[in-house]
């Protein structure tokens, strides 16, 4: 019995909690891509950099607050900074929209050209971020590091294995739940949200009903800005902020969005968690778990690992490619929000 509990703790500590955290970050990122796809109908390659931009704004404002001696008790100061950072990111989104995207939306250009345009925005944003904050690694997490320490858990339960929950992990999961509930409430219950869904569903019909496309597009960018900032900041808070990592992060995020069905918010969330858990499940070494569960004579000598941890992100690339091949429309197919 104790062995089973030990192995469960081990799995919770190394797969379930990190999976939920990373999955939440991916889900938020994928929601941003899905919103842009549903309304503007293109795959936004610049979304990773947008997340990075949001994280950068959060860091800058956190530093500002810290220089005034303002902190958030046992929680990271960055939480206070996120609303302000989101405002900056929204302004940046709206600026790119009116300077770049709006012209092409009115011309009804094909999705591939749109994609190349988003590459241009990607380059510009990447340069801007490195120009402002530099390419180095930044840590901006303060406050308590753990909600539950491994040692405390061991003392509490008397098990061999510890279970640690980092503050950032708790925050990530909590904020994601709140934000997702808010988003669904907005899309399903408010007039503006409904007009967005209508526009995404059938553009011409929505225009006939008197929905203002410009307003819909602006609201979309506002939501995308908020989602990107929160996702980027939480990822940076949980790991550490490195500008170049977001270029790679955009692929797992795309994988999540496509896996669930691009344009479908529920799909994006489910996709995020599926990708996160598969990355962890395929790269976790099960040696210790097997040691607890199997009799001693059968104890394994190897690590029992499907792939080395170096291939963590590559797992999501593989899933991405497989999904595109087997069911490109995703699990929850259909492009509705």
């Amino acid at each position: 019995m104790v062995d089973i509990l030990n192995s469960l703790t081990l799995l919770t500590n190394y797969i379930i909690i990190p999976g939920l955290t990373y999955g939440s970050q991916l889900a938020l990122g994928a929601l941003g891509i899905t919103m842009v796809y549903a309304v503007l109908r293109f795959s936004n390659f610049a979304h990773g950099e947008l997340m990075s931009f949001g994280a950068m704004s959060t860091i800058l404002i956190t530093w500002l607050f810290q220089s005034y001696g303002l902190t958030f008790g046992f929680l990271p100061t960055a939480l206070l900074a996120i609303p302000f950072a989101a405002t900056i990111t929204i302004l940046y989104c709206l600026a790119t929209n009116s300077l770049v995207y709006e012209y092409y939306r009115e011309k009804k250009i094909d999705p591939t050209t749109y994609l190349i345009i988003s590459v241009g925005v990607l380059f510009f944003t990447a340069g801007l971020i490195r120009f402002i904050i530099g390419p180095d690694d930044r840590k901006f997490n303060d406050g308590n590091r753990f909600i539950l320490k491994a040692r405390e858990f061991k003392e509490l339960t008397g098990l061999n294995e510890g279970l640690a929950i980092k503050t950032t992990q708790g925050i990530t999961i909590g904020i994601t739940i709140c934000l997702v509930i808010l988003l669904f409430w907005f899309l399903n219950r408010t007039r503006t949200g409904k007009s967005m869904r209508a526009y995404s569903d059938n553009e011409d019909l929505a225009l006939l009903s008197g929905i203002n496309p410009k307003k819909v597009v602006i609201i979309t960018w506002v939501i995308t800005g908020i989602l990107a900032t929160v996702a980027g900041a939480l990822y940076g808070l949980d790991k550490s902020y490195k500008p170049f990592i977001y270029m790679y992060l955009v692929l797992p995020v795309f994988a999540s969005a496509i896996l669930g069905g691009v344009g479908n918010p529920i799909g994006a969330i489910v996709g995020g968690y599926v990708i996160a858990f598969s990355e962890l499940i395929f790269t976790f070494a099960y040696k210790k778990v097997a040691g607890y569960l199997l009799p001693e004579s059968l104890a394994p000598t190897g690590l029992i690992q499907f792939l080395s941890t170096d291939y963590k992100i590559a797992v999501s690339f593989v899933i991405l490619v497989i999904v595109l091949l087997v069911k490109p429309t995703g699990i929850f197919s259909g492009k509705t929000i």
Partner: protein
Amino acid sequence: MISTKRKVFLFSFMGLALVCVGLLQSWNVALAIFNMCIISAIMTLGVNIQWGYAGLFNAGIMGFTIIGGLAAVLVSIPPVEATWAVGGTNILLGLIILITTILIAITVWKKTKSLERYRYLPTILIIIIGYALIRITTGPAIEAIENTEAAKTGYLGGLGLPILLSWIVGGVFAAGVAWVIGKITLELRSDYLAIATLGISGIILYIVKNEDWLTRGVKNVNGIPRPVPYEINLQNELWFQNLATFINVPVRDFSTIFVKCCYSALFLTVLFFFVWLSEKALRSPWGRMMRAIRDNEIAARAMGKNVSKRHLQVFVLGSAMIGVAGAMMTTLEGQFTPMSFTPLRYTFVIWVMVIVGGSGNNLGSILGGFLIWFFWVESEPIGIWLISSTTGILADNHPVRVHLIESVAHMRYMTMGIILLLVLRFAPKGLIPEEKL
């Protein structure tokens, strides 16, 4: 029809810019830029026949460049006897198992159509068994190889053949990989194709970064043999010293310039060959068919053209060119450094080249390759010059000025973004647009 004047003007502007660098910075820098310009132009040509001729969005350029570079390593580096002794046989065995597994999996997949919904089960089972077998046979061997003099070798090395051969091998490797990728992804919608190829190039990058037994991973492979003489040997040659005194240049400077010129000559030969090939293809019935497919796929299908086959063909050809360019680049650098590959630099910059130069036009691609590479390298010195001349009123150690000078290296990303967005807005067909033939 674009006037010849415009082409002449654009190309002479490009030449003038390079000469300016030669005069203002040094001829060494100018030639180094020129050599990379040629390599970029070849990559751009490759992408151009995929995008410009056939409308395929390949975002996996980095992957094919890496494969080309890997070919340079595998062909030219002499084999490492010690590592072959400890693990060579098991690696070869693993390779045989891999090929057998793939063959059996494909056969089973084809033969089990009757299972319908559960069709994937037997195939997956075979793949899992094959993977387990490979891990069992190669696992210890890989460990042994990687631990053999890890600081110096720790990998199998290559075949020790002349490096020039690797340019062809790089093309063949890239073509082979492109065939596999194309076979599975080309049926996708264009933006999904872009995402899929971007993902696959990421997988290729992770493989070369982590499979140390093959590529030394992040430890890099140095000392790849050269196709041209070494500076130090040249400096000791009597005829070379005489030549240097004859044209009145210090022997050391002249040797580096001479070596770079040798590279340029080799690269230009390849470039001319590919341009000739691409132009021939563009003006042939095959080129007409490709454009017809690009402009109206349904009509082309109705005319009995096999669109999937043609797409695969053009994807393989373009990728082969990129592979050759990748092998050339590794040859020029003399080392293979997996860490240096990023999608921004090796995929999206090439895309900027294609769009800016003019998709569908080979001359345009070359111009794009030259122009964008020039700005990619020179945006840093130009940026420093701009900042020091505009912030002249600020003191030398003013924090704003210091920060600007420090971050000037990142100007290149912004420059790329701005150039791409401006060209798409005001000259969406590129500097030298596609010609009506």
